[in-house]
């Protein structure tokens, strides 16, 4: 099992980035508008938290509770989304994808050289001013507040007499809690009348308009909601890592990763992107250099034996060298192959395909089976 399951730090990344991918899917998968600059909102959330912790956001002290910061970052991103969306939603298709990409790249190159954020904006700022860790919970009630972070977080000894968690595990559960709440909130919105209009826009925007919905306001609203949760995801990322870089937040390939997760997990299924990113991270972890969660490379090195490793394959290339060349940290290649195969052969993604096979959401079908509602 150890060889297959990613380790807990990877799982934390799965949680916060999965939330970002879900927020991307919320707008792109449900309204059909490919928001190719979604990283702008993720980056806004991440930078907001780090800047606030360094006392660089006006009116906010360095000790502002983390939960407030997440909400404020979300609101800031939602405002940004309304500004961007107001001009972008006059376009559709490729043009919408490109204008959102354009906006996010403007922000990316700006933040990369804005010396207000830190002494070396190209590498990104780190949390320097705030010494206390970021904590998730009910602000003001210490016993309901648990700190996150690898080194800075809380650890728990002997909960209920036998449960003990290290700092990373506490972070995992607390970040997971926020992600879960956000997931349920988005789920609720998708299944509300508002969400049904979004799906109507995806299926046939002209018809939705003809029925009497002002689709512009619905799209703008959905964009703002999506940006809010993207910023929360970015805030969690910054809160756990305590530093942020332009390349890992505002850059357009960050949106690309969310797109990857959405396609593999299932476009237009809210929970799908989380599974998609889990799948992605699992491959990355499995093929990583060190293989902290086990991994293929150390396994092969240990089990193939000296003689096999030294066997010459072709023109002086030994098996050992070949394994090193093609497996050493080149997960992107295999993720790309998997992605292309999904686009070609599994267009509905993991979760979408499972739902198609079962004939409905997994939870509902399983419950129906257990109750014996059918056959």
């Amino acid at each position, binding site marked *: 099992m150890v060889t297959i399951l990613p380790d807990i730090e990877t799982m934390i990344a799965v949680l916060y980035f999965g939330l970002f991918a879900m927020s991307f899917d919320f707008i792109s998968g449900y309204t059909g508008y490919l928001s190719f600059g979604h990283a702008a909102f993720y980056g806004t959330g991440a930078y907001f938290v780090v800047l606030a912790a360094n006392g660089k956001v006006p009116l906010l002290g360095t000790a502002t509770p983390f939960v407030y910061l997440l909400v404020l970052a979300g609101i800031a991103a939602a405002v940004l989304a309304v500004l961007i969306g107001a001009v972008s939603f006059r376009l559709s298709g*490729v043009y919408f994808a490109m204008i959102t990409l354009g906006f996010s790249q403007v922000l990316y*190159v700006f933040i990369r050289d804005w010396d207000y954020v830190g002494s070396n904006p190209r590498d990104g700022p780190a949390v320097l001013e705030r010494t206390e860790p970021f904590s998730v919970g009910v602000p003001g009630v210490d016993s309901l507040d648990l700190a996150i972070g690898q080194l800075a977080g809380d650890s728990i000894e002997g909960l209920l007499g036998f449960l003990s968690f290290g700092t990373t595990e506490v972070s995992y559960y607390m970040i997971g809690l926020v992600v879960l709440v956000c997931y349920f909130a988005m789920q609720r919105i998708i299944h509300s009348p508002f969400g049904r209009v979004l799906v109507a826009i995806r299926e046939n925007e002209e018809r939705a308009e003809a029925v009497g919905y002002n689709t512009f306001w619905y799209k703008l609203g959905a964009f703002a909601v999506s940006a809010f949760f993207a910023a929360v995801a970015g805030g969690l990322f910054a809160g756990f890592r305590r530093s942020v870089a332009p390349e890992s937040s505002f850059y357009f390939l960050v949106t690309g990763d969310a*797109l990857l997760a959405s396609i593999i997990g299932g476009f237009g299924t809210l929970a799908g992107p989380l599974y998609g990113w889990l799948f992605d991270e699992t491959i990355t972890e499995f093929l990583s250099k060190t293989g902290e969660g086990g991994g293929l490379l150390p396994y092969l090195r240990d089990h193939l034996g000296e003689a096999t490793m030294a066997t010459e394959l072709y023109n002086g290339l030994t098996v050992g060298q070949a394994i090193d060349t093609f497996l050493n940290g080149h997960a992107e290649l295999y993720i*790309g192959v998997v*992605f*292309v195969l999904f*686009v070609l052969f599994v267009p509905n993604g993991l979760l979408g395909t499972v739902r198609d096979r079962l004939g409905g959401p997994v939870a509902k079908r399983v419950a129906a089976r257990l109750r014996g509602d059918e056959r």
Partner: protein
Amino acid sequence: MDVATALTNQIALAGFVDALGQFLRPENLASVLVDGLAKAAIYVMIAGGLTLIFGLMGVLNFAHGSMTMIGAYLGGLLMVFAVGGATGAGMRLLTFFLALAATFALLAGLGGAVEVGLIRRLYDRPPVYQILLTFGLTLILDELVRIAVLFYGMQPTSDWQAALGTKPSFLAESVDLGLISVSGLSLFEIAVGIATVAGLWAFLTRTRYGLIIRAGSEDAEMTEALGIDVRRVFTVVFALGAGVAGAAGTLLMWDPAWGASVPLAADTLLPAFVVVIIGGLGTFRGTVAAAVIVGMADATTTWWFVNHVDFASLPEMTVFLILVAMLILRPQGLFGVEEVGGH
């Protein structure tokens, strides 16, 4: 406003007026113009293939930057082996064009294979799937190149400086044109850019195959009904686009501002997008005009950054701001037709 800020503002304003005066001096304007045209030549080569592919097939090819990047490596490799051995400026130029042609052919082959093997399967799906497929393709191509580069130990050794150094000496030096002196490389880039534009334009408007391509992008169904195999035309155009991207990559190898690296794929893809969108997706004329606009904006803001403004990202930011402004004011681009490629 207190006196101090008023004074600072006045000084800043005076500085700006000074700078503007300096900028408007003929020799500075002329060198910015040449720089801008050289940049426009590079942009038109990077974006030309992209707009052909979009115009005919409606596919926004995300793998286009990777094609340029592979072209840079292949071209660089050929140049180190072939051009480096050549003696005399004339021979070097000749072998450079041989390397350019070889890269064009290799990349065209790769492009054709990609179209036949992958993209052809997706024509009956919504256009977003083609974007997704080519996006996945960039991941694969970039990583394969990274593996090859690591495996052969091509970087970070300084071998690639060798490719840079293979250019004939008159390209590395400045040419005196009376009022101003410009780098020979800029003039060379402008020449190659003009040749590419002229070649593509002639191919599209003066040959029978170009006529078929234009007919296919106007109305694919009608062209099909006239007995023309549009699918084969798609393959040819995709190959052509990839080939031009590869040739652009080769040209980049002589320019010290670019050179070969795996991130070059993203670095060229984004300007190419900007250029085709500003020009109007799928119009070749628009792409040429937009390349000139973007090249000029780039050169102008680079001059301001080098001389007066302390903000390194100014040129890049300006380019994206032009994109955003264009999409707000005139979404179909300079020469675009409304609703091309919208879904």
